[in-house]
């Protein structure tokens, strides 16, 4: 049996940090989890939580109901402290907010929970592993980057769940497993080859190799353990195809068999150890063999990988404590919710004559009296630029359109908007830049945008709509800015033909209206086109023909639309 993530994780749950299981809900995933659970030590805690548990449930805090009942502070232990020594399963981890993730990450780093608030001081050990259930579908739907960094493995359960094996002996052996320095050097080298920059990943690989050796009953990490670790930990993080692995380079010649060196600990009459460089090559070759051929196309470029999840962080969806106060509502003041003291007292006052008053207290409060503050927060706007980069547009005024978008970007900077960039040309639409605050990157992306090809307008509009809906789900206000001459000639399904294409484009525009996504259509044709105008009407979009629209007017129009969004 080749050990997989489940086996290694069961051997060293806290050291390896955990695993991301990317799979929809289903029997495969359940079987995988059941196998993992069966291999964990008997009695090890196993807790399952939703993605956004309030802080006092996660870390512990004041138990309000008990505190009121007893008239003295009663602490409530958090989930993180209760899984010490076990695993914490996070359902729908792709929906976890970056704020929660950052706090869990801090606990993982320190391996203890420390709460000092609400007049309580709690310190509890919390050494645990995470199982992040990632049910994301879109490629950019992923658990927060802060947590992805801190779990060793990625797994995709299939129909064959991991075989359940005995792990207790391996766990007992683990602390004494030795890792030869050349293995450390080889794994670090392999990480560099695969473009894995984070030292954390290499440390995980070392621990995985140790766990694999312990599982195989070895006291010294062997090559196959390192190769396994390289494949399970490093290859899944690869950001580039290893240089040497691709060329038809002959396998490094097996070193001539010499009598084993006098390394007393290596009891098996081992083959002579290859040098770290040779070992690196071996490891990388082994990992490369397991890289699916299309994986690297799917791997986003480095900066994007770093951005994922992280970029989403700045805009926590809905803050209970940020913004303009707009009154109070019943609710318990825990986590981010702040107590509205006056309103609470006012709610409790009428009942005082009826309620028995506990000794030494001025008033008798019940949980149902609590009122918490409500806040209204300005919605953050995401401007989604869908730019027609087809041949007809390129011919006319792609350069001018780019210029106009640049001006709009400068406006977005002033308003602290997020921007995203979609280009459509040839066969389909492409998300060039996922929503970001980094406007300099947007500008670079735009400058590098080539023109030419057919006009898949329907695909472009559909991509913009998808992104806009995703942004809306995240609690932001999307604004779609389409720049096109309206002359579609590629239909939704990719087939050529102007009539079908126009029909599909109108259809896609109507979908924008149905979703109530505010939109602006900038007609880039030299003369205003009836086609573009019809499209704007179908989408209920503001229509701005470029010839009449100098850059300043464009920017005013988009600015006005954005302001409307904010106030609305």
């Amino acid at each position, binding site marked *: 049996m080749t050990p997989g993530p489940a086996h290694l994780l069961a051997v060293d749950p806290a050291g390896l940090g955990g695993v991301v299981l990317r799979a929809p809900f289903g029997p495969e995933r359940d079987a995988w989890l059941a196998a993992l659970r069966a291999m964990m030590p008997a009695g090890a805690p196993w807790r399952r939580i939703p993605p956004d548990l309030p802080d006092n449930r996660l870390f512990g805090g004041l138990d309000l109901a008990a505190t009121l009942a007893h008239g003295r502070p009663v602490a409530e232990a958090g989930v993180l402290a209760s899984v010490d020594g076990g695993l914490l399963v996070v359902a729908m981890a792709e929906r976890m907010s970056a704020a929660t993730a950052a706090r869990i990450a801090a606990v993982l780093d320190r391996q203890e929970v420390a709460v000092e608030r609400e007049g309580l001081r709690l310190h509890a050990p919390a050494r645990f592993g995470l199982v992040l259930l990632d049910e994301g579908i879109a490629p950019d739907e992923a658990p927060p980057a802060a947590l992805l960094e801190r779990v060793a493995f990625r797994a995709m359960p299939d129909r064959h769940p991991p075989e359940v094996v005995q792990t207790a002996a391996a766990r007992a052996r683990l602390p004494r497993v030795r890792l030869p320095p050349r293995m*450390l050097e080889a794994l670090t080298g392999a990480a560099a080859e695969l473009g894995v920059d984070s030292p954390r990943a290499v*440390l995980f690989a070392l621990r995985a190799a140790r766990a694999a050796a312990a599982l195989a009953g070895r006291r010294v990490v062997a090559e196959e353990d390192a190769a396994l670790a390289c494949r399970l930990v490093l290859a899944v993080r690869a950001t580039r195809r290893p240089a040497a692995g691709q060329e038809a380079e002959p396998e490094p010649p097996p070193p001539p068999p010499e009598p084993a060196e006098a390394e007393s600990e290596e009891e098996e009459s081992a083959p002579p150890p290859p040098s770290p460089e040779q070992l690196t090559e071996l490891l990388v070759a082994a990992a490369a063999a397991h890289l699916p051929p299309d994986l690297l196309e799917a791997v986003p470029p480095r900066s994007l990988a770093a*951005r994922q999840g992280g970029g989403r962080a*700045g805009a926590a969806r809905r*803050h209970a404590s940020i913004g303009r106060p707009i009154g109070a509502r019943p609710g318990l003041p825990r986590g981010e919710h702040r107590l509205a*003291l006056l309103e609470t007292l006012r709610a409790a006052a009428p009942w005082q004559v009826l309620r028995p008053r506990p000794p030494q207290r001025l008033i008798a409060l019940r949980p149902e009296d609590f009122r918490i503050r409500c806040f209204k927060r300005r919605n953050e706007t995401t401007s989604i630029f869908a730019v027609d980069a087809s041949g007809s547009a390129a011919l006319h005024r792609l350069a001018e359109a780019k210029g106009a978008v640049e001006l709009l970007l400068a406006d977005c900077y002033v308003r602290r908007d997020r921007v995203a960039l979609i280009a459509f040309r040839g066969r389909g639409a492409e998300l060039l830049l996922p929503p*970001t*605050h*980094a406007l300099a990157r947007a500008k670079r992306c735009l400058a590098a945008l080539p023109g030419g090809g057919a006009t898949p307008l329907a695909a472009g509009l559909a991509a913009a709509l998808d992104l806009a809906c995703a942004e809306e789900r995240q609690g932001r206000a999307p604004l779609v800015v389409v720049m096109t001459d309206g002359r579609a000639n590629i239909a939704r399904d990719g087939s050529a033909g102007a009539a079908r294409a126009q029909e599909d484009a109108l259809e896609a525009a109507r979908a924008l209206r149905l979703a109530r996504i505010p939109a602006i259509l900038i007609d880039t044709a030299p003369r205003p086109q009836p086609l573009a105008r019809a499209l704007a009407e179908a989408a209920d979009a503001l229509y701005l023909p470029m010839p009449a629209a100098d850059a300043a007017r464009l920017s005013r129009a988009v600015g006005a639309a954005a302001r409307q969004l904010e106030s609305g």
Partner: protein
Amino acid sequence: MLPAPQQAHAAASRPVFPFTAIVGQEELRLALLLCAVDPMIGGVLALGDRGTGKSTAVRALAQLLPEMPVILGDPYNSEPGPDTPPERIGRMRVPVVDLPLGASEDRVVGALDLERALTRGEKAFEPGLLARAHRGFLYIDEVNLLEDHLVDLLLDVAASGENLVEREGISLRHPARFVLVGSGNPEEGELRPQLLDRFGLAVEVRTPTDLAARIEVVKRRDAFERDPYAFLRRYRRAEERQRAALLRARAWLPRVVVPDQVLEDASRLCLALGTDGLRGELTLVRAARALAALEGQRRVGREQLRRMALPALRHRLRRNPLDDASSSSRVERAVAETLPL
């Protein structure tokens, strides 16, 4: 004069990776040391990739600093005065307070103490993170993703050294002097220029590209995790030397002379770069002075100025937000032109 030191807080937590065992990151380490020599420099902004050990460096530095005397049970880490009864004087480690992303304003500045309000009907103040960071470090990971209003608040407190609370019927002020250390990845979102300018020094942090250095990073980290206490013992001497150097520099700082020529050079450099306001010059001179103190120099020379120009000025250039010409190269060019050796 001080009684037998008492642990003010349960500081016997997990061991911290030693400062002197950090591989590479010279710029970040130097910037942190300089802020420890002269907190007036105004904090460090570290921009770079994830997992490069930025927070490790901050924690390690705090560990390096000697424990400070505090009044026992005081939530503001106050320094004992001449009239503090000796039995109330304790010692504590220099605090490093993390500001988690998504922290609410109440957590940061402090708020009404809920428990006491509810159970005893008292109006009491529950100090926030700013109070805990007094005389230590406030570390903000991903500062570029922090809510704007929180950033404003932090910078305001960091500049004034005092936290002013006016909320929920509470009105008080308490000292909050700390070294602000921010980190972030500019790819994930940019910092407003007003905010950039408020950090004293800005350094760039990168994963080492050299394989030998990377191996050394992993090796030390792995050794530390396998047996932290043995690892700490190995670095104890180096840590002590570094601590002694730091304390010497602190004592030496007030006596370091800043010649007029150096002030003039600093102004000329800032003029050439077109930095707004005087904060650039001030920070540059302070950093150069701290550097001279750290190196045991009697007076600040052009040499120190040249070395500190990059971290002190690279984030203060006025630039078009959409222009991505590297500011570092602009500073380097200006240094070469205005301050030739």
